[in-house]
């Protein structure tokens, strides 16, 4: 069948040649009439079958939802403080190893021992251990034991949510789940980026999701799902009024995108705090102005000035004090933040790290060092065996020793560090490049060799590098120097290595080479060099040696040598 465009052209051509298109009008009209009748005849049975169609369509949609819920419900946990179903709430497993999320206020009653219990929809109770906690954000991570592999739910993207879309909450309101199957409630998103004032020191919910799903006491800590079965929030609060603590159509969930930044720290078993810029804002007409700046704050240090108009924080446009409070309340302490401001009509961009906002509560929290080390080794392990056959171009693999000398302090100091990246060569039967394994052993041998945790190594809270969430492993050298490796949270690639001291952790930074520029065994790598004015420490790169991919001859000695320097 000829296309219509072509037909149009033909029509024009016909006109040009002077052909009379109406020559065959009469038979054409008859045919047109028949065709019209035919089309309407088709329509009649369509209308008549509308009932059957409608029911089939509604049933199919319902069935799809049922299947999504059935799968999601397997990841929902009924959280208890003891094995007699005391002190309950809800939670959700987000990793097959049994890691999950719940509210801080759900586990608060057993935060001392950190040991509780989780009931799953298989009807059984599993031991539950609380790992990292974020009391300010009302989120903690736990781990269930007792099975090799747990059903888990994937995380969604709460920035993509829209008011009016269907969502479902799952949990254990009023502890009704006698067999641990969760209660499922359906509703829509009623509002986004809502603010709920805290009660006492806790439970301030900023930037939260407001939902019309029924949320009642006992739902706390449980997941909010989208219709694809992805976790988009953790339910924790509801509005109550004269009737008492019974749902009246408004519930609130901590957004999953807020929780994401805290995931590495939660997984590392740490007590996490939120950040502050040390500045407040106020609305002058239509403009949001910096109203006050605390002395010695991050804002002051980076050069924010009173009267600057604030446009964006961490990539989010802010127009009102509420917008500002919402974004500030959800960032972790020490997080890198880029501010876009306007000063005297000129745009300015400033980047700084937030300071910690101390918890306004006394909390006895002893970090679990063994767990932290186990997680740390897990990160190194994953980094070592990260999938190297991703179909991308091969890129460099090597160990290098970087010597950085600092001048100006009289004595020279140097860091020697072993850093590995990946190369796609012929993998062995495990899919692993044998030289790669050796490189990592060199790096981690001192760590692996010790029976008890090596206190010089620690898994820190997460960080952000070039917009990517990273795990951070820190190695403390004897004389107060520190090296931090930052591995991508999702892909386990090495993103950054940072050298510094206790006072100034970011003296020098190394980032992996741009892999597209790689050529054979040489790779161009970049050092960023930072000079602090007003301080005697100036850093210059004196020399960098590139060491070939062969494994070092005497790895143990090299490690000792590194320690001694």
């Amino acid at each position: 069948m000829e296309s219509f465009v072509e037909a149009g052209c033909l029509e024009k051509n016909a006109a040009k040649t002077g052909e009379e298109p109406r020559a065959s009008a009469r038979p054409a009209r008859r045919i047109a009439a028949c065709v019209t009748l035919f089309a309407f005849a088709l329509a009649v049975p369509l209308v008549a079958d509308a009932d059957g169609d409608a029911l089939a369509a509604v049933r199919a949609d319902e069935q799809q939802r049922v299947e999504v819920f059935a799968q999601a419900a397997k990841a929902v946990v009924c959280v208890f403080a003891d094995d007699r179903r005391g002190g309950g709430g809800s939670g959700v497993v987000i990793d097959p190893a049994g890691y999950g999320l719940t509210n801080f206020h759900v586990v608060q009653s057993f935060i001392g021992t950190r040991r509780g219990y989780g009931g799953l929809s298989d009807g059984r109770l599993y031991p539950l251990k609380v790992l990292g906690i974020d009391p300010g954000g009302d989120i903690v991570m736990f781990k269930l034991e007792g099975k090799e592999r747990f059903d888990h739910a994937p995380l969604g993207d709460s920035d993509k949510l829209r008011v009016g879309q269907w969502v479902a909450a799952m949990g254990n309101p009023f502890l009704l789940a006698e067999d641990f199957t969760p209660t499922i409630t359906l509703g829509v998103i009623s509002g986004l980026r809502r603010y709920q004032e805290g009660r006492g020191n806790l439970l301030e919910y900023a930037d939260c999701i407001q939902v019309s799903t029924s949320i009642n006491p006992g739902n706390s800590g449980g997941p909010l799902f989208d219709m694809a079965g992805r976790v988009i929030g953790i339910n924790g609060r509801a509005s109550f009024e004269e009737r008492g603590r019974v749902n009246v159509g408004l519930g609130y969930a901590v957004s999953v995108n807020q929780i994401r930044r805290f995931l590495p720290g939660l997984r590392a078993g740490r007590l996490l705090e939120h950040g502050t810029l040390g500045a407040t804002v106020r609305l002058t007409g239509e403009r949001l102005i910096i109203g006050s700046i605390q002395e010695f704050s991050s804002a002051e240090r980076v050069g924010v000035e009173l009267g600057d108009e604030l446009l964006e924080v961490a990539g989010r446009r802010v127009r009102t004090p509420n917008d500002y409070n919402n974004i500030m309340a959800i960032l972790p302490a020490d997080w890198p933040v880029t501010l876009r401001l306007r000063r005297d009509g000129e745009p300015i961009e400033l980047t700084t790290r937030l300071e910690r906002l101390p918890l306004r509560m006394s909390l006895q929290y002893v970090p679990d060092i063994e767990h932290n080390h186990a997680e740390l080794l897990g990160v190194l392990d994953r980094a070592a065996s990260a999938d190297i056959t991703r179909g991308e171009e091969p890129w460099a693999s090597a160990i290098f020793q970087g010597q950085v000398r600092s001048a100006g302090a009289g004595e020279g100091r140097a860091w020697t560090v072993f850093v590995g990246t990946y190369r796609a060569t012929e993998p062995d039967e495990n899919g692993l490049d044998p030289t790669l394994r050796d490189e990592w052993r060199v790096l981690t041998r001192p760590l692996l060799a010790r029976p008890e945790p090596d206190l010089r190594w620690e898994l820190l809270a997460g960080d952000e590098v070039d917009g990517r969430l990273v795990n951070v492993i820190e190695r403390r050298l004897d004389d107060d120097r520190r090296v931090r490796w930052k591995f991508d949270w999702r892909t386990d690639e090495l993103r950054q290595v940072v050298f510094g001291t206790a006072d100034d952790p970011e003296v020098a930074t190394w980032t992996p080479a741009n892999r597209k520029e790689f050529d054979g065994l040489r790779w161009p790598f970049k050092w960023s060099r930072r000079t602090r004015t007003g301080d005697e420490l100036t850093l210059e790169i004196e020399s960098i040696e590139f060491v070939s991919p062969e494994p070092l001859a005497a790895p143990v000695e090299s490690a000792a040598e590194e320690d001694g320097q």
Partner: protein
Amino acid sequence: MNLPHAAILAAVLLCLPASHAQDESAGGPFADAIDIARSRVVKLYGSGFGREHGYGSGVLVSGDGRIVTTLSVLLESPAVRAVLPDGRRFPAEVIKRDEEAQIALLKIDAADLPYFELADSSELQPGDWLIAAANTFKIADGPEPISVSVGVFSGRTELSARRRTQDFTYRGEVLLTDLIVATPGSAGGALVDARGGFVGLIGKAVTSKRTNTWINYALPSERVAAFLNERSDVEDAAASEQPAAGDATRPDLGIVLFDIGGRERPAYVERVRPDSPAHVAGVRSNDLILSLDGDATETCERFQAVRDRLRVGREVAIVIKRGDDLRTLTLTVGGRER
């Protein structure tokens, strides 16, 4: 444009889905209706008093800033403010009230605002989708979008309710919903259908006398339209339902109830006055009166309250139980001098 081109265009236009523009617009199956509703509901603020909240909702009914809301203490404040969806604040003036329906009309000095057309709600059927948009719990501030929720239309009924200890003045037809709208700040908000058509004004939070629970309802849009257009007629009609204060006659049926044991006892007939309306209709001694003019009469007190509301001369139905039988009889309300 010639025929084939027109055909292409027609076909293409009929197949195009509605597009949703920016990030802040709603999503899901009711996106358009939500966007329509949110852009026509305003936040109202005034002063509170005791348990009364100083905030609520209102709906825009004209492009120049006429707003309908429910009567409440917040309107008594000298500085009632309306905050538009875009965040602009205006002082609002009360220009009309309807004490029976407990609604009011406000005016702000604005122009070119989107507003609701007051169509009627008669097309609604139980089970139809409804969307509520209101300033519930005043969660949203300034330009922040108000809260929305999705539920269904439950049905219609005549309202019989209490607000705290007092009978609620409005006893007319309301739209029931399973959306929870009996919450602080929701009164004066909008109920719209799946296409964004305004069907009802969320009513003041009251307790149903029939169930003793908070009842979720809205005033039908026709009633709101009547308030805006024919206010005096509505008032007159309401007035004519009541016997005037100075009326010489009161309604009388000729029924004397068994009064022993207090007025909470069931309405058993002791005797019927000969030739009275009840006698003519067939009511006899020992009959139990179950309902009068459609209202249940559980107790003697209820019977008398319903009877006192009747209009002399009207024909009303009376349902009685005699033995195991139920009968519906018709009587003409008589009058008796006070």
